[in-house]
């Protein structure tokens, strides 16, 4: 009855529209990420996979801005893969022996053609080059990678042709908290002071932890501190390990520098998700985010995160299973976007 009375009073009204106030709301675009969808990828690709091949198994990728301009989407992806000899059956469990580079004009629809930029050749590499990290430093592209005996480095001027730096790894096993564990999965960034910072995983008995090293020339590295900068928590999504770091620096709209750390979070049951932590400049320790940023229930076993920032959104690249069936039980590179309501520019063909 009361409603009827009100409706009489409002006889000239129309229905309310959908409501505003939702445009341009603040968001650090740090996560959580949603998987990109079909129409957000170029033709012939199956979302959310931006690079997928059931012969060579490209995996463990890093993506960089091709022209250094965040306003454009041109990107290069560096991924590890393995060329299977004709007489062998493709086997995703065989470690990769090459690092390739492919190009995308839209940040995610990578061309199927690629260049091989590094092959395992050195004895210390043990036939393995994997988990690339690429950074532009001193006007050159520096490629850091994991080999069987540690972390190696190579550099080149065009992002395609690389020459190894030295004859051995730039970061080899060490004592102390690393307990002679093999450093692997490097992530490298250029700090505000112009030096290089490397974050790397060290497998330990109690679960992988993340260490930090610094360098002024890319060739010689000095470990920071006497403890890992990020280690498994007592409980939660990374109680079983913190692995495969990816780090980047950003400045908030209020001018504060933030060091962001994405990583593979492994819980006590072995379930893997993508975790996120960050610290303000000057803070000693990283603060964990309230929730994982990607991975759903972990069925696809995501790992090796890499994040690239654009104007109003970020793209996350992870290596995960190509699907949940046995036939798709091989690694592929998937992408996600944050914030979840971001509208991506049109996909490249």
């Amino acid at each position: 009855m009361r409603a009827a009375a009100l409706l009489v009073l409002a006889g000239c009204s129309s229905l309310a529209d959908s409501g505003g106030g939702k445009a341009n709301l603040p968001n650090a675009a740090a996560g959580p990420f949603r998987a990109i969808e079909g129409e957000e990828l170029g033709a012939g690709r199956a979302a959310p996979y931006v690079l997928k091949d059931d012969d060579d198994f490209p995996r463990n990728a890093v993506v960089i801005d091709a022209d250094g301009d965040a306003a454009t989407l041109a990107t290069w992806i560096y991924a590890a893969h393995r060329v299977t000899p004709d007489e062998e059956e493709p086997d995703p469990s065989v470690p990769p022996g090459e690092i390739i580079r492919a190009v995308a004009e839209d940040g995610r629809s990578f061309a199927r053609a690629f260049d091989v930029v590094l092959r395992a050749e050195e004895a210390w590499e043990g036939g393995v080059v994997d988990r690339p990290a690429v950074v532009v430093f001193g006007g050159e592209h520096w490629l850091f990678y994991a080999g069987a005996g540690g972390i190696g480095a190579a550099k080149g001027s065009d992002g395609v042709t690389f020459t190894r730096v030295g004859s051995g790894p730039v970061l080899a096993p060490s004592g102390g908290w690393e307990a002679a564990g093999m450093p692997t999965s490097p992530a490298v960034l250029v700090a505000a002071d112009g030096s290089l910072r490397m974050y790397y995983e060290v497998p330990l008995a109690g679960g992988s932890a993340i260490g930090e090293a610094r360098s002024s020339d890319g060739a010689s590295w000095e470990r920071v501190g006497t403890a890992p900068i990020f280690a498994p928590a007592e409980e939660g999504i990374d109680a079983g390990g913190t692995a495969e770091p990816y780090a980047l620096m950003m400045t908030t709209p209020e001018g504060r520098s933030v060091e962001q750390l994405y990583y593979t979070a492994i819980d006590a049951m072995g379930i893997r998700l993508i975790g996120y932590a960050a610290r303000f400049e000057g803070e000693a320790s990283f603060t964990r985010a309230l929730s994982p940023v990607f991975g759903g229930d972990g069925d696809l076993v995501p790992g090796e995160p890499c994040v690239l920032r654009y104007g109003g959104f970020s793209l996350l690249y992870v290596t995960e299973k190509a699907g949940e069936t046995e036939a798709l039980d091989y690694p592929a590179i998937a992408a996600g976007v944050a914030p979840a309501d971001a509208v991506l520019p049109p996909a490249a063909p």
Partner: protein
Amino acid sequence: MRLLAAAAVLTCASTASAAVPDQFGFGSRSTAMGGAVTADAKDFSAGYYNPAGVVEAPDVEVSFGYMYNMQALRVGELDNEVEDVHGVVLGLVAPGELFGVPFAFSVGTHLPDDGLSHVQARRQGVPRWELYDARAQLLYIEACLAVRPLPWLEIGGGIGYLTATSVHFGIRGRADLLSPFDSQLEHEVDGDLTAVRYPQAGLRLVLEDWGAFGVTYRGESNLDLEVDALLEGVVDFAGIEVPLLYQLEASTISSFTPHQIAAGISFQRVEDLSLNFDLTWMHWSNYASPVARLFARLEAEPPPGTPVELPDEPLPTIPIPPEFSDTFVPRAGVEYRGVRFGSERELDGKKVALVEIPLRAGYWYEKSPVPDQGGETNLIDTDRHTWTLGAAVGLNKPFDDVLDGSLRLHMHGLFSWLPERSVQKSSAADFIGDYRVGGIIAGGGANLEASF
């Protein structure tokens, strides 16, 4: 899918807000004076500003008007497209005398012209302009009575109404997943638009030759949004029948109007001039969390061995107390009534000119009640300075044969500046991060008042 949709509601918070007059004024005369009319409200708007004032009306007055307020509220440099606030304003004042005591009845309303009641639901932590986003998309009605038992004392009281919404929807029957058109489902939707009421009362002391002093109390109101849903039936998947029951009840506060006590004084010592000052206490610390209180239950019995994985019942959101602070809102207003011309005539026993043009101006300042948002919540708000200007064109007894009273067109303009406020998160890993907010509000309106 429905389950997921229903679950999505569970962590929603609605956009909570207050009534239109609190933020944009009520009636062009009162708004043009910055709302500083607790001691000087004389028309239908007195029902909001001070119900005692309606007894000042000499004749029956009918008002019809419209107001529009454009909100340009932004984060950083980008506009958030918060909806403009606009609607029809109606008012009626009917004075009389009862047992020799002057009394008056008044009713007024703000009627949004794009809907009766509009609320939005968002998850906790999602940024929103807490006090501006959709706050005025609500129907507001006030009704009051006032008496003047003594020549220097006026007392009034009334009720404010806001609309609220409750919705029930239910789905019952049998769903065949492989042949949807063979499904037999009953749908039921029941929506109810109800009103919440809160008291308003005022007192006005007339200080002869000096002006007046007024005090007003406005009660608190919580406007509930309630949703309950029931999904009950059998899901048939290729011959496997799964009885299913999903029950959801969610309720939240979609609008909050704080307790308010306003005190005002109107200096009228100088002829044709009113200088008004108000101070309003607003009990924002009682602001309730807009996060939904909920109950959810899922019951399903898939046959043993069926590869059906039931989702966990969603955990309730733990509301973070908003911890708003009480505020004091100072207001100032001025009205100059010395501009008049035209032939003289008698109205209500006084000599008046044919044309009167009162000029008005005002200002008020609202300190934001919202605390620093360095944590998980993102209730966006900032302080607000508002300047107003206005005028009226009054015609006294313009048509003796038709209108033995007056016609007045009141107009006002409003400009609010919301100075920038910086939000810096305590956690570097906050998904929203730092931001800076600010904006402006510009508006205006007019109402035509006829007295008989």
